[in-house]
């Protein structure tokens, strides 16, 4: 009888401990799925990460929902892309009563910190390359090398909130980078035969990807975000593709199929659908799978 009591007490204690452990997990909110995947890689079991923008949606056009404000209320850390990519987050942060995760607070992490940005145009908007961002092209997570910098920034942010687990975070990050570097070598060999291959993209999301894997982005279908391309521009793109021998048009799943198919047909090119973010394609389940999916799609189209 006493034994049974003891067992019951033990069981109750176990439940309590595991519950407090689960509660103890640090709540992290990220804007995009990519940052969620990278934060998970660093935080491991110690963090509970949610991302605000649903997978496959254009993060630049996201409109926050009431639930998002609720999520931020209890969050200890907020990780964003920065570089004017998730500008809507500024207004969202202003509405939250959680000052720790506001700009300048200990829980605020701008993942673009320390990134070598491409295509900076100062504060004045330069000639059309598909972005109204003066601070540089914001799609920097599409270079796996930048994951080293991003995870370092996330690590510093998590260690600020939870210094006791800094060692765990450090070890997690090291293990992740080791795996990533192994994969990077594999990706680079896969794409090596297609070095300097000319590509046309719908939106200018790929300069970091192109730089790392040595691809030649010759033009973009969308010159200004949200404005349909003019016939003169499309004719120019088709002419350019014929001149440069570009046989692939890169499109993300949320970009219009018709316009891309039209250009591809006129220029006799194939369409490669790549994921710009984790979850945009079914195969791109995490940060590493994202590159696996994209590199396979690209090699399949280039062959």
């Amino acid at each position, binding site marked *: 009888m006493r034994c049974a009591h003891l067992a019951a007490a033990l069981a109750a204690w176990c439940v309590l401990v595991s519950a407090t452990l689960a509660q103890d997990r640090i709540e992290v909110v990220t804007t995009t799925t990519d940052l969620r995947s990278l934060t998970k890689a660093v935080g491991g079991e110690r963090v509970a990460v949610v991302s605000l923008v649903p997978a496959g*949606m254009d993060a630049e056009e996201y409109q926050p929902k009431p639930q998002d404000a609720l999520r931020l209320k209890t969050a200890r850390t907020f990780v964003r892309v920065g570089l004017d990519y998730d500008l809507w987050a500024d207004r969202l942060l202003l509405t939250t009563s959680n000052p720790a995760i506001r700009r300048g607070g200990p829980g605020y992490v701008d993942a673009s910190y320390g990134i070598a940005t491409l295509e900076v145009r100062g504060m004045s908007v330069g000639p059309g390359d598909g972005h109204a961002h003066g601070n540089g092209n914001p799609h920097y997570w599409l270079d796996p090398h930048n994951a080293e910098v991003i995870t370092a920034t996330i690590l510093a942010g998590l260690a600020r909130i939870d210094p006791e687990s800094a060692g765990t975070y450090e070890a997690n990050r090291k293990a992740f980078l080791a795996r990533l570097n192994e994969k990077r070598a594999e990706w680079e060999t896969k794409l090596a035969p297609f070095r300097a291959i000319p590509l046309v993209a719908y939106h200018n999301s790929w*300069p970091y990807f192109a730089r790392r894997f040595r691809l030649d982005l010759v033009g973009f279908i969308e010159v200004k975000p949200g404005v349909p391309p003019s016939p003169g521009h499309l004719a120019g793109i088709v002419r350019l593709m014929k001149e440069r021998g570009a046989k692939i048009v890169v499109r993300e799943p949320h970009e219009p199929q018709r316009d891309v198919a039209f250009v591809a047909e006129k220029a006799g090119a194939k369409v490669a659908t790549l994921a710009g973010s984790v979850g945009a394609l079914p195969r791109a389940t995490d940060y590493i799978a994202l590159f696996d999916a994209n590199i396979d799609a690209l090699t399949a189209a280039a062959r």
Partner: protein
Amino acid sequence: MSEALAFLWLPFLVAVCLVGIHAYFGIQVLARKVIFVDLALAQIAALGATAAFMLGHPAQSFATYGYSLAFTFTAAILLAFTRAWAGRVPQEALIGVIYVVAAAAAILMIDRAPQGAEHLKQILTGNILTSGLQDLSVIVPLYAAIGLLHWSLRSRLTGTTSLVWDFVFYATFGAVVTSSVAIAGVLLVFSFLIIPAAIGVTFGATLGTQLAIGWIAGTLTSAFGLLASFLLDLPTGAAMVCAFGASLAIAGLLYPLLRGDRRYALRTTVAAARWGVAALLAASAVQLAAAPRADQPLLDVAETMIPSLRSLYLSRSEATTFADASAYAARYNAEAEQLNAQEKGRRTEGDTLDDFSIARISSFLKSYGEMQKGEQFVMQEVRARARERIRWVGAFGLMMLALLGAPFSWRSAAGWLSR
């Protein structure tokens, strides 16, 4: 030019087909006073397609089209009833409610399946530029069939107010709009529907002449809009909508000249134009005198078109500063572009630039951007100071021009003064 033709002949043929059927429906829609019914039907069709997508049917499949059509027919039943229901509340209000509820319901659905957003966008923001033979192969038989049906039923569809014939009208119109909005987008389809019909109704008395005038106006305007979009490098749909707007304005201006007392109409037009110009000049004069450092739209436009106008009020040293700043701004821009091009080149040629070099280029680019902004500030400041200096003289000159331009009887003014 051959390149333009290669790009534009298919969209032009599609536009001719769309004008053909929509001008007819437009005349009907104007007569029934249900102007925005096409927006409501298009939104309902999009809602149907979104529902199909949520249930796992791929885009542009038979099932998706079936869902769109089923939703549209349901809406047609509702619309047929709106005439009976519309007592104190106008029919247009009920149509508006159908539109906003369908749009909001689609957003709620998409919220559960984010990939659907693109789907919905594709249905409502077609791009006529990328339409092709495939679209023609669908719409030509469909529109011909619907056109024949309406012609054979014309006596029943135009006059009476029975529920059944209202349903037939809205259902066939829904089938037309569902396909045309997917091809050309909501804005352009609305223009195809209303503007040629409005021009036709303005100038024609019988349905036949109204249709003929609408078709001619619509076809010419489409051709003009497509060509302008190619030559001026503008988004095609938006350029065509503006061309249609302009054609309606021209038709409105021509109407009194063609139909009314010609001499009186001409005189009124000229007087109105002169009053307009005079008012613009006088407003600019007041703006220059009151706030010389603020934007001066008229002066800015004039200076952009004829840069030498600036020498009228800039002193020699100011003109030199202005020109220098402008040259420096252009130089910084060119150097920044060169750096960007250099970085882009190294992505594929030679060794890749390391992160340190990239960061260095970035900081150079940022500096160039700031320096360019600084030069632009100098240009603005020089101009603002010069304008401040000449505010009274400039305002007086503009006011004199306004008085000269106004269709003002100087003799009666002099008589009034001498009294």
